[in-house]
């Protein structure tokens, strides 16, 4: 029996098991049969085991070089390093779907095991939902995109593997896809328990307790995946930026936004019994956005360098799943509406509840906005939609924007459109990050308001004034760039405001703790962190966000120069000089390389660093040379260079030179955010909050 046949049989067994498990769970729930429910629970564990076997079989096929399997032949190569042979498993569409099934079944098995006794009433329906979702993806593998599909030609026609796309043979690309998968796939668990809560009517906080850590896990890995993707784009693509609002980038951002809203919104239900509908809507929307993101990347409906390719069958399949999610979820919400009434009312707009409500609206609204804008260009390609838009929607749009044009063909939407609308939203969220901890539950009294806000407001004003004064001083303006950026100044001010809020919370918390026991400041600080991890871990996450926004603010003062240079020439880039020192030609087993040697000089003409931007021509992708950027990193910013075009014979080089102020604060901020997330996820059951 060949690996191809054995693997296909494994997929068939997998699909049958999902159907049987779903049936057992449904029957067990309807008949209240513990035996059938236990059977379905064992079924979920069995599904993971079979998915693991199928995955390991595919890995073996890559390691053994079984090129009779199409997927292995297209993505494997005998001379590929073993590490890349292993990661080739998820390197393309078919294998990535199997990887999805593996992770989903693993998370399903773990979550059911963890909650089997703690939330017994939710288990049957959670198993049902998880089995159905896994069944959907298994069906895709079995009927549409089988990674074990063999070549039907004679063995002589099967040549050796083509190898993985060279762009993916990069350390960032090893971790970026799995991180995103971990984040997106794990959202199915909270969704399953949320649906189970609706079906059973147990819509109190119990179902959230079973999934809070899963949502945090999902959020953490989505964050890692998004930032790694940005770092890869910054270092490898050579356009000097890290986020371009590409549709596939947005696919990862959409569930992240919903997830972040949910993590905050649950606190309101736990404390005040409010926002029950919101929490369910957010968890359903988070999962929906993961499917929507998968639809975008795998169906071919959007044009992106990141997309897996075109597949109309997948487009219809995912479209059907999304419709089913929306229809079933809305029906359940309507059915259970009476149970979802809040225990309390919103008593004041100056309250933490209102701040969280605004937070929900901003995150939810942003996610929906981005989701619609991403798909809009594809819709404008359709004659029917253009007619509908011009006749019915355009009058409404022109109320907001009087110069909105008629649609005459496909349009493209670039980063400037997204930045125009998302920048104010981002600043509003940063503001709420600072305000949230300052306002009280239920309502904030006047005296408390003054006491809490005066410090952060002063800090914010000082930060804004400092930025307004300092930025023009440190920038010589030789390139004629405007140094007054209103958004940039506002961002600096809000960074100062929010930063002071965090410091204030720590200072007051240490003071309160020391008031109740004899402790040094360090001991009190450590005690605070250990005993109130969720709260103070969250503040560390917020600190990371502040630093990231500090880095974003620097983007407003970016300098860009696209020019032609020859060896020996020197050009000015802000306070630095860039000297062209020649071109070097080299090669290795998979590519030819042309490397441009540049020196970075300070104002005195001393060499402070060397840059080596390059162009690579992979033998298997000669028509698509890759750009290798090079940068000189500093606390205040990066000097960044990439090669647009180069001629070895004449030394003619077209270069893209950038000065990116404060960009490294984005990566630093992310590291701190990650640390805070890990602290939060480590909250133990017995931890008390605050002072005890």
């Amino acid at each position, binding site marked *: 029996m060949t690996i191809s046949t054995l693997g296909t049989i494994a997929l068939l067994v997998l699909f049958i098991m999902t159907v049987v498990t779903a049936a057992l769970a449904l029957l067990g729930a309807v008949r209240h049969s513990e035996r059938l429910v*236990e059977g379905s629970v064992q079924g979920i564990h069995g599904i*993971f*085991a079979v998915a693991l076997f199928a995955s390991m079989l595919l890995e073996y096929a890559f390691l053994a070089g079984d090129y009779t399997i199409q997927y292995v032949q297209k993505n494997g190569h005998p001379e590929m390093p073993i590490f890349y042979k292993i990661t080739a498993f998820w390197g393309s569409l078919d294998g990535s779907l199997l990887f999805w099934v593996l992770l989903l079944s693993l998370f399903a098995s773990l979550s059911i095991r963890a909650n089997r006794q703690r939330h017994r009433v939710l288990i049957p329906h959670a198993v049902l939902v998880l089995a159905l979702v896994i069944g959907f993806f298994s069906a895709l593998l079995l009927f549409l995109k089988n990674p074990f599909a063999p070549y039907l030609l004679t063995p002589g026609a099967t040549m050796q593997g083509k190898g993985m796309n060279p762009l993916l043979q990069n350390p960032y690309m090893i971790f970026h896809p799995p991180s995103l998968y971990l984040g997106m796939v794990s959202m199915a668990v909270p969704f399953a328990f949320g649906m189970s809560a609706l079906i059973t009517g147990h819509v109190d906080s119990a179902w959230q307790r079973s999934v809070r850590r899963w949502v945090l896990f999902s959020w953490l890995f989505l964050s890692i995946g998004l930032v790694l993707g940005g770092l890869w784009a910054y270092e490898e693509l050579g356009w000097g930026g890290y986020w371009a609002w590409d549709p596939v980038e947005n696919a990862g951002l959409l569930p992240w936004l919903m997830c972040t809203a949910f993590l905050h919104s649950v606190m309101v239900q736990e404390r005040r019994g409010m926002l029950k509908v919101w929490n369910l809507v957010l968890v359903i929307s988070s999962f929906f956005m993961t499917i929507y993101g998968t639809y975008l990347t795998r169906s071919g409906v959007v044009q992106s360098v990141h997309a897996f390719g075109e597949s109309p069958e997948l487009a219809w399949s995912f479209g059907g799943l999304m419709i089913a999610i929306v229809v079933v979820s809305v029906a359940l919400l309507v059915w259970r509406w009476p149970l979802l009434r809040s225990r309390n009312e919103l008593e004041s707009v100056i309250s933490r509840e209102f701040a969280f409500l605004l937070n929900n609206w901003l995150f939810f609204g942003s996610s929906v906005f981005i989701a619609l804008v991403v798909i809009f260009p594809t819709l404008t390609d359709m004659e029917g939609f253009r007619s509908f838009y011009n006749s019915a929607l355009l009058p409404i749009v022109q109320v907001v924007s009087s110069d909105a044009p008629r649609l005459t063909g496909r349009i493209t939407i670039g980063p400037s459109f997204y930045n125009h609308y998302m920048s104010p939203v981002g600043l509003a969220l940063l503001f709420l990050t600072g305000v949230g901890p300052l306002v009280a539950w239920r309502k904030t009294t006047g005296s408390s308001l003054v006491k809490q806000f005066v410090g952060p407001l002063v800090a914010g004003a000082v930060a804004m004034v400092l930025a307004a004064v300092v930025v023009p001083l440190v920038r010589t303006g030789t390139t004629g760039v405007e140094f007054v950026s209103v958004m940039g100044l506002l961002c600096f001010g809000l960074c100062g405001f929010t930063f002071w809020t965090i410091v204030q919370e720590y200072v007051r918390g240490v003071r309160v703790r020391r008031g109740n026991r004899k402790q040094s400041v360090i001991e009190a600080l450590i005690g605070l962190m250990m005993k109130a991890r969720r709260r103070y871990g969250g503040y560390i996450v917020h600190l990371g966000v502040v630093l990231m926004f500090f880095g974003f603010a620097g983007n407003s003062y970016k300098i860009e120069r696209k020019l032609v240079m020859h060896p020996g020439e020197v050009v000015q880039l802000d306070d630095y000089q860039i000297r062209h020192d020649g071109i070097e030609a080299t090669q290795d087993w998979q590519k030819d390389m042309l490397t441009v040697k540049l020196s970075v000089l300070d104002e005195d003409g001393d060499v402070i660093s060397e840059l080596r931007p390059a162009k690579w021509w992979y033998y298997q992708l000669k028509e698509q040379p890759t750009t290798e950027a090079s940068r000189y990193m500093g606390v205040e910013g990066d000097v960044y260079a990439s090669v647009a075009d180069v001629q070895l014979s004449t030394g003619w080089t077209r270069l893209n030179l950038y000065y990116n102020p404060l960009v490294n604060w984005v990566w630093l901020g992310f590291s701190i955010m990650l640390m805070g997330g890990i602290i939060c996820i480590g909250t133990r*059951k017995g931890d008390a909050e605050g002072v005890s």
Partner: protein
Amino acid sequence: MSPDAAAVQTSTAPAAASEAAAEARPSASQRRELMTWLVATAVAIAVLLGAVVAMGGRIEAATWGLVVAAAAMVFALRSLYGMVIALARPAIETALEQEDVAATAGVRELREERRRVLRAINELQFDYEMGKLSDEDYRAVREGYELRAVEVMRSLESESALHPELQQELRRRGLIEDDSVEPDEGQPDESAPEAPRDEEDDDERSAEADPHESDQAQAEPAVVNACDACEGANEPDAKFCKHCGAKLGASPAEAEADEEAEA
């Protein structure tokens, strides 16, 4: 920190820790299964290492891949077998096992609920001390949490198992009866519900109590395993006080004998 919260927290923190420890210990069957897997894994690793040594360390990546795939197949077959076994068991056997587990899980959930409510009280107090709550709001919200905590504790165990200080506070608020017996435990409620009584009445009652009365929990920890440190009542076979965590000195028989001698 108010006396009742202090009492509630003091009585619960060590108990919570011991409960958590008890919950963390696996059952005998789980330990057996774990041992089986560990032994099997150790044997498999030993065989693999032996093969590596025998072949001079020249095992290819593909061979390792094959080994892992084979192990995954064994795991898959074992899981499928587990599913068949679960379905083949008599329904009554599964139902009995799950009911037994459910009973434990129910108690565990109540304990977890108690921990959550106490955590919420702590967090509320912290917010109050940070200046984020007015006095009125603090009192109102805290009272709600405390009532919930009492409700959970009453569901979890009988009143006589409560910390003595907490019992007094609950009686003062009129939240529990003077009589220690729960009406819903099927015992006749001999004393009519009255306003909270003072300590003098409690002392009289404890003096009159017959330590040889039935094995239902008593209001005063006179018969069952009383703690020397806090006088809280504990189960006869308890080794540590569930209210304050102190080690219990005398055995119940000795405590009974001592109390008989005192009476």
